[in-house]
Structures are given as C-alpha cells and as structure tokens.
C-alpha cells in the first residue's frame, strides 16, 4: 500500500480515539477543567505526564539534533530528564500538599501578594507561548510531509485539531487523551528503533545495539566516528562545545523542566502527596524509555544517512529524498558540478532554508538559488526530519513509516494541549477570577477558559508559521525562561520560610528580564546584537537561563534582607506544606 494512504488510515484511527476520549471525558466543572477533579491515579498521571512532557521536540527534533551534534547533544538528554529529579524531590510533593490549581496560585498565596501573582502569570504566559510555538512547528513538519502540503498549511491543520480537544475536554479530557497518546508515541518511536538496531547491529535492543558491532566487526560508534572525521566533522563521541557552555545549557534545561507550569500542574491532579511522589517516578520511567532510545536512533540514522548519500549520484538516491525535497526541508546543490552528493560540515545554503528556482536539474533535483559557496557541503537536511525520515532511510515497511507520523503528531498535540490549558487557566482563573472579576460564575469562568484557549491557539499558530529557530532550540529557550523565573521563587517558597514577597517579586522580575535581554541580544540581534565571541563567559543564549536563575536567587535574598519580614500566618502555611498528612482535595476557593 502507498505510504500516504497508510498514513491517512493510521493517523485517522489514532485521532478518532483521541477525540472519542475527549468527548467521553469532557469537563463539566472548572475543577474538572483545571485539575481533572483531582482524582487521577498515579500510574495514569505518570503516563499522561510523560506524554505531556515529551513534545515534538523530544519525538521529532531531539534525535535529529543529537545526530548532528554527537556528544554535544547530551545536554538535551541529561537536561530534560535530570530536571525530573528536581521536580520529584523538591517541588511536586509540596505543591500537591498546597493543593491549589496553578503555579501563580502558589506564588500569589505564598508571597501574599497579587503583584507576585501577576508576575507569575506573565512568566507562565511567556514560557508557555514560547514552548507551544515549537510544538505547532513540529505538527506542521509532520503534516507537510504526509499530506504533501506546505509546512504552513500543516501548522494550520494542527491548530484546528488541538483546539477541538483542548477546548472541549479541559484537563480531564487531556489527561485521558494523553494516556492514549503516550501509548501511540512510544510504540511509534520504539518499533523503527528495534528494526534498525536489528538490521545494523544484530541486537534488537537499541540501547545495547548502540554500543554493539556492525557487520564488518568494528564497533558502531567507532565506525561512525571514522565516517564523521573522514568528512571533516568532529568525532561523534567527542563533541565540540565548550565545557562551560555544556554545563550551563544542561543546568538551564534541568531547572527549566522543574519550573515548567504545564508539568507542575500535573501533580495537582492526583489525590495524595505520596501519589504525587510516585507519579513523578512513573513519569520519568516512561520518559526514560524514549530518552535512552533517542541517542541510539541518532547514531543509527547518522550512519545510515552518510552511507546512503555520500558520494552517490542524486538520481541514484532512494525515493525518500525526493519526497522530503517537496517540503523544502531537504535539498541538494551541486557546488562542484561533479553530479555526486558531498555531505560536509557547514551550511549548504545561505540562510535558514533552501530557495528553489522552480526548475529541475539534469538529475531531477530542484535547482537551489541560494547555495552558500563558502564551504563544500552540498546537502541541506533539516534536522527536524531525521526521525521522520529514519524508517524510510532504513527501508522499513510502509506501516512503520505511517506509525511514526502518528507518533510525532501524538507527541506534539499532547504537549500543545497541556500548554494551551496552562495559558487559558492563567487567564481565566489567575487573572479573571482571582483578580479582575472575583464574582464570576463557574460557567462564566469555564467559558472564559475556552475563549482564551482559542486565542492562544491562534497566537501559537502564528509563531509556528514564523518560527525564530528550530523546534528544539525554541523549546530550549522556553526552558531558560522557566529556569530564570519560577524555579527560584518556588524553591525559596518551600525551603526558605523567611523569603518575603518583595524578594520573590524582585527576583522573578530581574531573572526574567536579564534572560530575555540576553536572548533578544544574541538570538534576535537587538541591543547591538553580537556573535559567539561576545557571549558572556562563553555561555550561549540556550544556557543563559542558568545565569538568570542565579541572578534571581541573589536578588531575592538581598532584597529580602532589606524589607519587612514574612507574616506569621504565611510562615505557618510553609510549615503546613512541608508535612504530607492531610493534603485534602485540590480545593476550589
């Protein structure tokens, strides 16, 4: 059967399941909309958290990034899983005990101030929008390939689907849909990995195959190191980033993970504190299945890619090359006119994407109008296509290819839905109900939540069509912002009884501002811009969230010393949060 028909069938079936679940479990009250009524089992919550958490960045982009970066890509692996340890040990149990709906709720009550609450809302919106933009882009990439449409049309289709079930189901619908999405995405991720690991190394477990031997008896990683260095790339297992930058990026991703509002809010949905602890454990175990497989896929994909394309005539390449060319995410430009593909370091094209003249060359390739002649690389491969193209590169059966498309969509949609919920909750609950219109009815609040989800999707779609960078890079920025704003405020709120509102607000504002400034300066070329050599202490914008976090802690503590002490009843509240018994319901208030 043809790939496209198969994709329609498999994606169609999975979508019918998600929408069915959304209708079956649709939210009737604000409590069901925000925290699924607080009655989700730890195992289901672990599964849902894992799906919520593993986004298009994890599923589509990460293995591709690692594939091009080798050891340097470890920052994503350690960063995005290590943060879970912080979340499970330092935040989840206490926030569950606190028992309200949102992170701004915690900040607002703990720091007895609506100013603090408002700052937290702004941080939550910033983080969530940055993150959701990355997801919409991921959805677009998948749709564009499998429906053979432009990537922008793909984004719009994705927007409509997310809207249907985030708006209808709220947290309750999302939680149960995410359980189904986890199953789909992990199955879709593992099946091709098993196949390819078996084919390349003779061992079906990818985590072991990655360290195994290929047909000619050399270790796979040694073989790849050799391929890489022959073509002029750094050895795969060595990497080329500065150690300090690797350190800071990893830290920013870890601290950001722990500060992400859409992940934290998950722990409000289980009944007890001990369930919150346990479900964080389940979540990371489910995440680890994908996260230990991804680096193996990176190694397999890169080895296969180099061996398939390097030194071959374009007309001899398999059909997946032409299929991806249609999406503008892959291109070949014959710089030295020898008719053969040369894959080398450096960018094949000038700018972010290849521009096609609309005419076809002698070998059936699209003519590229913007080749970058300063290097010898002739092949443009968008990193975001590696995972999706991987089964095609390895010549796997059609149903596997279709399955991967369904998995990518499951990953992107589950995360986008979780984020949209945070955005709409921030507006309808934290802003409208808690500040502007305290007398609003439950129905009115629910309506407002749904309306804001609608607006949020539209804005997210805009950023999906005009993305600042690659999916994973955009997401990494969201983490930096979360690390610089929420993480210190929540940690101090729990572990430092004396931290007062003045300190927390000053800390969040300064952490967020300095991080935004740095990103705008070095990513978007504002405030004089600057290149790599201008980075402070050699830290890239992706890693700067860690610095923002340190600034936040520092400012919080200094300001606290010079301002009035925390009131007695708030200190009592902190004492209460620290012991688990009597968590009670996630109460409306």
């Amino acid at each position, binding site marked *: 059967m043809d790939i496209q028909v198969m994709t329609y069938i498999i994606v169609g079936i999975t979508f019918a399941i998600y929408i069915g679940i959304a209708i079956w479990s649709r939210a009737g009250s604000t409590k069901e909309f925000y925290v699924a009524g607080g009655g989700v089992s730890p195992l289901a919550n672990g599964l849902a958290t894992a799906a919520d958490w593993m986004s298009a960045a994890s599923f589509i982009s990460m293995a591709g990034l690692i594939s091009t970066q080798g050891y340097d890509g*470890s920052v994503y692996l350690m960063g995005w899983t290590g943060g879970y340890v912080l979340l499970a*040990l330092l935040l989840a149990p206490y926030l569950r005990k606190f028992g309200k709906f949102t992170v701004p709720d915690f900040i607002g009550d703990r720091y007895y101030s609506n100013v603090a609450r408002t700052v937290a809302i702004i941080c939550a919106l910033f983080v969530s929008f940055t993150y959701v933009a990355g997801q919409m882009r991921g959805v677009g990439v998948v749709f564009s390939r499998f429906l053979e449409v432009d990537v922008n049309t793909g984004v719009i289709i994705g927007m409509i689907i997310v809207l249907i079930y985030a708006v209808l189901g709220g947290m309750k619908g999302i939680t149960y849909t995410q359980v189904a999405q986890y199953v789909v995405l992990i199955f879709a991720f593992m099946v091709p990995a098993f196949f390819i690991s078996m084919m390349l190394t003779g061992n079906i477990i990818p*985590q072991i195959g990655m360290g195994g031997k290929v047909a000619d008896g050399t*270790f796979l990683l040694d073989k790849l190191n050799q391929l890489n260095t022959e073509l002029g790339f750094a050895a795969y297992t060595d990497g080329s980033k500065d150690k300090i930058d*690797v*350190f800071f990026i990893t830290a920013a991703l870890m601290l950001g993970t722990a500060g992400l509002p859409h992940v934290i809010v998950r722990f409000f949905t289980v009944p*007890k504190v*001990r369930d919150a602890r346990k479900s964080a454990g389940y979540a990371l175990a489910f995440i680890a299945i994908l996260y230990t497989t991804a680096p193996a896929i990176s190694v397999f994909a890169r080895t296969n890619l180099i061996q398939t394309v390097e030194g071959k005539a374009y007309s001899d390449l398999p059909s997946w090359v032409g299929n991806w060319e249609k999406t503008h995410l892959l291109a070949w430009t014959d710089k030295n006119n020898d008719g053969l593909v040369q894959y080398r370091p450096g960018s094949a094209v000038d700018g972010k994407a290849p521009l096609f003249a609309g005419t076809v060359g002698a070998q059936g390739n699209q003519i590229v109008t913007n080749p970058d002649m300063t290097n010898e690389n002739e092949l443009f491969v968008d990193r975001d296509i590696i995972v999706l193209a991987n089964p095609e590169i390895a010549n796997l059966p059609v149903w596997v290819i279709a399955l991967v498309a369904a998995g990518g969509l499951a990953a992107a949609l589950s995360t986008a839905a979780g984020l949209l919920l945070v955005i709409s909750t921030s507006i309808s609950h934290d802003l409208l109900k808690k500040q502007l219109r305290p007398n609003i009815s439950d129905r009115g609040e629910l309506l407002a939540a749904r309306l804001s989800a609608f607006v949020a999707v539209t804005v997210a779609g805009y950023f999906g069509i005009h993305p600042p960078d690659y999916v994973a890079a955009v997401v990494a920025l969201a983490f930096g912002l979360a690390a610089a704003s929420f993480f210190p405020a929540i940690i101090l709120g729990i572990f430092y009884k004396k931290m007062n509102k003045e300190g927390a607000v000053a800390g969040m504002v300064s952490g967020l501002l300095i991080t935004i400034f740095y990103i705008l300066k070095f990513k978007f070329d504002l405030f004089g811009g600057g290149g790599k050599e201008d980075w402070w202490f050699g830290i890239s914008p992706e890693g700067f969230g860690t610095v923002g976090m340190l600034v936040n802690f520092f400012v919080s503590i200094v300001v606290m010393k010079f301002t009035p002490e925390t009131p007695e009843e708030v200190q009592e509240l902190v004492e209460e949060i*620290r*012991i688990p018994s009597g968590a009670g319901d996630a109460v409306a208030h």
Partner: protein
Amino acid sequence: MKDHTKAHKYWRANLKLLAILLSIWFLVSYGAGIIFVDFLNQFKLGGFPLGFWFAQQGSIVTFVIIIFVYVRKMNQLDAKFGYTEK
C-alpha cells in the same frame, strides 16, 4: 504558635535524604557526563566510551532509580513520624 518539634525533626531527616540523593544526581550527570567526560572516555563499556555512555545513557537510568529510592524512603519516613496519609 503551634508546636513544630516533631515536624522539624521530620523536615531535617527529609533534607538529609535530599542532600544525599541530589549529590548522586550531580555526580552522574555534571560529574561523569560533563566535567570528567574526557577522563572517563579512555575507558570502554562495550562499544561505548564510558563518559559518553554516562552522558547519553547512564545518567538517565540513575535518575529513574533516584526517584524510586526517594519515594520508598519518604514513605518510610512518613510512617516513622506518623504522617502517612489515609
């Protein structure tokens, strides 16, 4: 002001457990995976350079174990201090 003596003892035991677990967390990721990666890479684990293995596999597996140890220890601690939820 309520009497917090028991709660404070519980809290100190909790902080001690956190300190131990977070030290391990730091050692496997920032230690083995980043700071000492070049040193460890001279050793091999099957086809993996050891530091590279920690960075891309070993640290993640350890993280999962850390959380489950934490869950177990905290449940014991809750029981010891009578804070187990009904």
